[in-house]
């Protein structure tokens, strides 16, 4: 019999190293995110809007786990977000649970025009709490805020749910792009804050954060570049 958990972890660790051992980086951290929530709430569209700044109008259901990256900047630090977009279908629930481990941020999405997706949040939240580490930032996102006429979940109600459960919360629209950036960036800021506050043990495989000391490259030591800050 194999030594189960250890094999798993070391395999992950190896994979992380090979992924990041690719020459000098221009980012200091890698944060792993997962996006969870019922089928059809727009998880993949959020990811697409965030990475490509485009709305996918006929996005097929995700049957599996999609993967996207983007480099952002928080407090002058470049951070690479590694985002795992999971299938929302109930039948995959058991499988997608295995992707929660090691996430630094969990974006839990519901559809403001479909109450059922909101009602299922507690079950998603249970998974997120049980399967991630205590410092994982869980961000509640009400998607499709552009469809005001069809709204079934009032903002205040969801806000209250978020407050009661200690979640960060906003409503956004993957279609118009409204506040999509905020959702991803505020999560990163919170994670970064946790690092600064010493709440996150970067050495733990489960932290979902990898630290990459920025390579000092004097060759590129152009003053202008050092001044570069995108404050996005």
């Amino acid at each position, binding site marked *: 019999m194999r030594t*189960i958990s250890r094999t798993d972890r070391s395999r992950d660790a190896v994979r992380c190293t090979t992924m990041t051992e690719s020459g000098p980086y*221009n980012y200091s951290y890698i944060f792993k995110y997962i996006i969870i929530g019922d089928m059809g709430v727009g998880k993949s569209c959020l990811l697409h809007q965030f*990475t490509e700044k485009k709305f996918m109008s006929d996005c097929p259901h995700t049957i599996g*786990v999609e993967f996207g990256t983007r480099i952002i900047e928080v407090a002058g630090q470049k951070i690479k977000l590694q985002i795992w977009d999971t*299938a929302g279908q109930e039948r*995959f629930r058991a499988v997608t649970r295995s992707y929660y481990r090691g996430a630094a941020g969990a974006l839990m999405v519901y559809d403001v025009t479909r109450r059922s997706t909101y009602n299922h949040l507690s079950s998603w939240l249970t998974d997120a709490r049980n399967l991630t580490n205590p410092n994982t930032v869980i961000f509640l996102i009400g998607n499709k805020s552009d469809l005001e006429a069809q709204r079934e979940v009032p903002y205040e109600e969801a806000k209250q749910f978020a407050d009661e459960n200690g979640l960060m919360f906003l409503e956004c629209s993957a279609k118009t792009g409204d506040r999509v950036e905020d959702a991803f960036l505020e999560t990163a800021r919170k994670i970064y804050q946790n690092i600064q506050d010493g709440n996150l043990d970067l050495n733990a495989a489960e932290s979902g954060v990898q630290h990459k000391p920025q390579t000092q490259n004097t060759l590129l030591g152009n*003053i202008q570049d050092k001044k570069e800050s995108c404050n*996005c």
Partner: protein
Amino acid sequence: MESASSSSSLDSEGNQHRHDCGRVWNGMSMDARYIPALRRLVPPDHRAVGCVRCMISRGRKRTPQVCVLVEHMQEHCVLICAEEGALPNATLKSDSRFPINVDFRIDIEPVSTVGGSRVITANLSYKRKKLIFEADYDDTADRFVKEISKAFENSKYRNTPASDYLWVEVYKNNSKFFLDVNPEDEDDLGEENKASRECMVKCLMQEREDEFTVLNEFRIFTGTWNVNGMAPPESLSEWLASSAPNEPPDVYAIGFQELDLSKEAFVFADSPREKEWLLKVKESLHPKGRYKEIKTVRLIGMMLSVFVEEKHAPFVANVDCNSLGTGILGMMGNKGGVGVRLDLHSTSICFVNCHLAAHAEERERRNQDFNDIRNKLSFNQMRPAKSVSEHDQIYWMGDMNYRLQDTTKQHVEQACANNDFSSLWERDQLRDQQAKRIIFIGFEEGPLNFKPTYKYDVGTNQWDTSEKARVPAYCDRVLWRGNNIRQLCYKSHDNFVISDHKPVLAEFSSGIRVVDAVKRKEIYQELMKQLDKEENDFMPQVTVDEHYLNFGRVHFYERVQRSFKITNTGPVIVRFLFKEQPKGRRYAKDWLKADPHNGTLKKGESCDITLEILVDPASASKLNMGEEKMSEVLVLHLVDGKDIFISVDMEYQHSCFGCSLEALVRHMTPIGLLPQETLIALETDPVKNAELGVPFETPTELWIIMDALQRKGLSGGNIFGKSGSQVEIQTVREALDTKRPDGQLDVSVHAVAECLLLFLSALREPVIPYCFFKKCLDSSVTYTQAKSVIQELPKVHRDTFRYLVLFLQELLQKSKRLEVNILATIFSAVMIRPPQDGQMTPSKERMRSVFLYHFLVNHCEV
């Protein structure tokens, strides 16, 4: 030699391809080995003029590449190409292009000798892109460089306007960042693919600099004066503050020569004159400006000071200076040059002040001095060190000492009196040598509309009245190189009489690239986005034609296959595999198998993956009992990419295979005809849910199998020697599960025999129950011990054991070809099974075989 022979053989081929390939001019600037590659690279309406293999340096990076000069409608472009594959079948891919137009520059360095071989070097630049070309010196390389030079010269005299060079677009690859992956050599994916993103961003930003910078006009004042070792006069304002009263220069660069002729200046680094003059300069700068001294550098008598208006000081960066002596022994600083470099906003500027060898006849020496300074003066604090020529703008001033030749003092005086200065220019050595491309290549100079500045009698405005009566000369000059520089004035000042030279000034209106911070941020973010997108786009992508495979009804030991197609639709090679389930479990339940289970797909390639279900004895009981779900989600993982879920459903038909003896002996209805819930209830509590008040001794199914074997005859050789066909086994299974057969099974004896073994190995609890496994092995030494274990078994197990032993004894009697050892091994393996897989060892196998052996060779007494 080699090129001559290969070129002739290629000529005939060339004719063949004339119509579908670009024209390749097999001239003297062409490395003929590349002709086949060029035919593939160059489109029909272009012409390859030359091609050489070379080393290309960009900053610190030095790579072997192939440089190609192409022509289209009298426009030329230099292509820097990567060579893939080996000659003569190499392929060229252009990774950067240098259109030869107004933005292009070429500087050819004198041929140098490196490690015994001669090397030809040229600096190429196009806008902000710069590189150094080096090739082994031979006729081809020499001619190639000259062709570029010629193309550049010709580009200046075009009578048609230059195009936007859209024609070079065809050489662009689809992506600058990721090499087209050659599936044959996966290992080469490494370096280039993972090229530093930071480098890329910087490089791309530089390419787009035009978009986020604006040219601001800066007034740059340059002055040069050979002061003959004198103390400064009362004021220098007339010289230094001669610009328009309300237009103070933004930058001053003031050069002196012979600032200090004292012996001390040669020996000590410190010179009192330096301070005196510097102070005087500061006092005399334009009164409307407030200046900050950026740098002063001095080498004995040569001093260069750079000042900028205070408001520009925050935008000055990377200031560095150096000096180079070319005097006695090439070390002493009585002749040579000093330089200051700086970045003003994002334009790099280099000021050089020099003092070249004196005397009319020392022209060659001056040329040498100039080229030494140009090639050897470098700014070493920069990383990498920058040479003079690596600057956007160069202002070169000094006492160059070039004389007027083939003329007389009288003629010069006459010309000056008539303001006919231009007649003097053609006699000027500097202009002559520059025209011959020996010095100041690429530099410009304004018209010398002033009197020669040398040599005056000190204290007067009279030219040399000494016995030597030297011919006056334009010793003191300012030249420049770079784009967007306009000279505003170029003159001398006669009123300074302390020296035998007059001070000269040149004022410029220069376009300095000023970064528009907002625009830059926009473009920076755009680039980051683009790179993010590329990174996402370049992840492995596949499509699968089925995400869901329903196998429908599946029976015990029935092989069912379904397949789906996976196609690599992405831009890179894909490696896929079925990911292990969490906690290190196999990628799927035991009854499901994928073939292939991992693999590699080239771009556009497809692969059929077959999923096969086979419920074997090990899985049968769990599925019978509903303990294992009849569905599965396979995770198809792309290495470095996403996961795809493949769902599998089946409906397992429960069967007597996989039941327990206790259940089987208590029912009449065929198992297959029972609802699954009834079966589960029967299995869970056989006594309570029994159909029969009095159970059978042994399962009916077993009896049917034995009966069939008896009927088919046991004497026909080894009945376990062959396996039955799929169909036959299903026939037997169907018979056992659905109807009470009359023993007329229309299958071979081998199929029935195999079913016996399957039946025994599928039993939920083996004939020797799991909890007796260890005891059984421990008691295998003697028959007596073995018998005592059997006595302890539950009745149905004991009865079944005895029934099987009696059958096997009969079999041994009837079939002389069956060996008792073999039979013991076969049957012990299905009757005496370990509680968990993987607990078997050869010695345990031997022990359980011995255990059964005792019963086969002795009179059965249980």
